[in-house]
């Protein structure tokens, strides 16, 4: 498989706040790596052969790459916005393709069935038309004007509301979502999904949040997101095939899936095929 295009991208490999001199052994795209603090307190990532890998610390996480990233880690402007609370949610390991994990994050139609009575509930199952585009300048997938009825959209929400969402895919295994912020109308809460590809069919999912919420205890915020991602895991580990089919025919999309259609098209265009299944194989 030609995974060269994805080798040159950045991936999360751990939480900066949990790193020490002893370091952490982990895996990136099948290769064993070590993430540690050096003598100066800076993050350092090395490959099996002692090769020093690119490193960047952004959004609470350490990022690295087996190849040579041509750009810095993608921007999240809200990470510099005053008044936000940043939450390192931790990690959920999922036996699935990293691309399937991202695609699930882009999907709202599953809310009533998988996150029942939290992010969705019957009979409010309809997905209204929304806008999807590949923004050429930023080279990102964007979905906007996504609306969905939610019984409890966030830890800070009381009672059902129609939540508005925007989604971005700025990197092959990362997505950032913006959603209505219950205590602060006019602002958006930011929830990001950073996926570390361990193998083509195994990943560590690192959610991260930048919220306007000074009330909810940190533990509750983390439990809320962990609950959601564990519910997702029960789906992701039972999809056949484990890899994401990039060619049409294997799966049937509808209008509600236009974000995933654009994501798959964008992956294919860039030859981002680590974790993907192509008909030709």
């Amino acid at each position, binding site marked *: 498989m030609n995974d060269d295009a994805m080798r040159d991208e950045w991936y999360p490999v751990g939480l900066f706040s949990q790193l020490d001199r002893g370091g952490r052994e982990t895996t990136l795209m099948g290769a064993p790596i070590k993430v540690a603090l050096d003598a100066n307190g800076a993050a350092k990532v090395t490959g099996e052969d002692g090769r020093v890998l690119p490193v960047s610390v952004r959004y609470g996480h350490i990022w690295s790459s087996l190849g040579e990233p041509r750009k810095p880690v993608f921007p999240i402007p809200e990470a510099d916005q005053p008044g936000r609370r940043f939450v390192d949610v931790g990690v959920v390991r999922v036996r699935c393709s990293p691309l399937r994990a991202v695609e699930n994050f882009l999907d709202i*139609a*599953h809310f009533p069935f998988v996150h029942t009575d939290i992010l969705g509930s019957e009979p409010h199952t*309809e997905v209204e038309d929304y806008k999807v585009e590949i923004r050429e300048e930023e080279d990102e997938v964007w979905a906007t004007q996504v609306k969905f009825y939610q019984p409890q959209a966030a830890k800070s929400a009381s009672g059902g509301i129609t939540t508005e969402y925007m989604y971005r895919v700025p990197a092959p295994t990362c997505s950032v979502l913006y959603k209505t912020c219950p205590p602060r109308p006019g602002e958006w809460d930011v929830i990001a999904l950073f996926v570390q590809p361990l193998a083509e069919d195994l990943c560590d999912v690192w959610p991260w949040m930048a919220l306007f919420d000074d009330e909810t205890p940190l533990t509750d915020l983390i439990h809320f997101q962990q609950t959601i991602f564990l519910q997702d895991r029960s*789906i992701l580990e039972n*999809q*056949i095939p484990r890899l994401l089919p990039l060619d049409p025919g294997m799966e*049937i999309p*509808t209008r509600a899936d236009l974000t995933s259609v654009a994501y798959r098209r964008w992956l294919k265009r860039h030859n981002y095929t680590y974790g993907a299944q192509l008909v030709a194989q």
Partner: protein
Amino acid sequence: MLSDKTDTWVPVALSQDLPTGQAMPARTLAGPIALWRSQSGRLAASADRCPHRGMRLSHGFVRGEALSCIYHGWTYSQAGRCLRIPAHPSLTPPETIRVATRSVEEAGGIVWVADGEPDGKPPLFEGYVPLRSLTVRAGGSALSAATGTKAAVEGFVWRAPGAPAIRLLPVPQETGETLIHVLVPADCGVSERVAASRAAESLRRMAERIEAKEAVP
């Protein structure tokens, strides 16, 4: 007569293990299937994969006479046709959206599935009732060695010390494991049923030991 050909009946589960309004996974040599029983009690079997996003349908839920996928609620009839896509409530799904179905029959408390169109009905084992199923990490030859009997796929009678003669129905799995349905004489009392169940478990241990030994070079 049972065989591993695909147009013959394969015993995939016991009726008692599939209550009304539930779905469960099962396997034939042609692959995984979703087995489900509607509210009115009708059995259905389909490929264990929703064509929308590949989710296993055996994780789904039954309402009325239809099975819904747990991921997005796409709903299928017993004949495999997609009836409803909840994200688009006013849309009538095109006929082309469907899951492949299997022939399914219940006989003597056993659920039988065939991938093709089998001739005739599945066999009935007169005088026996199903007790339980168990999966053994061993193939046919280890099972034959453990019972001292040829472990024929059409079933065979085996007698362990202190237990009634039981009928075993071994079903080879793609994984190399064997699913075994255990049948006991219809007039067995509770203590004999308990003894039969324990005998089947000791058979499992024996067969797995033999299989493990054979695997060692």
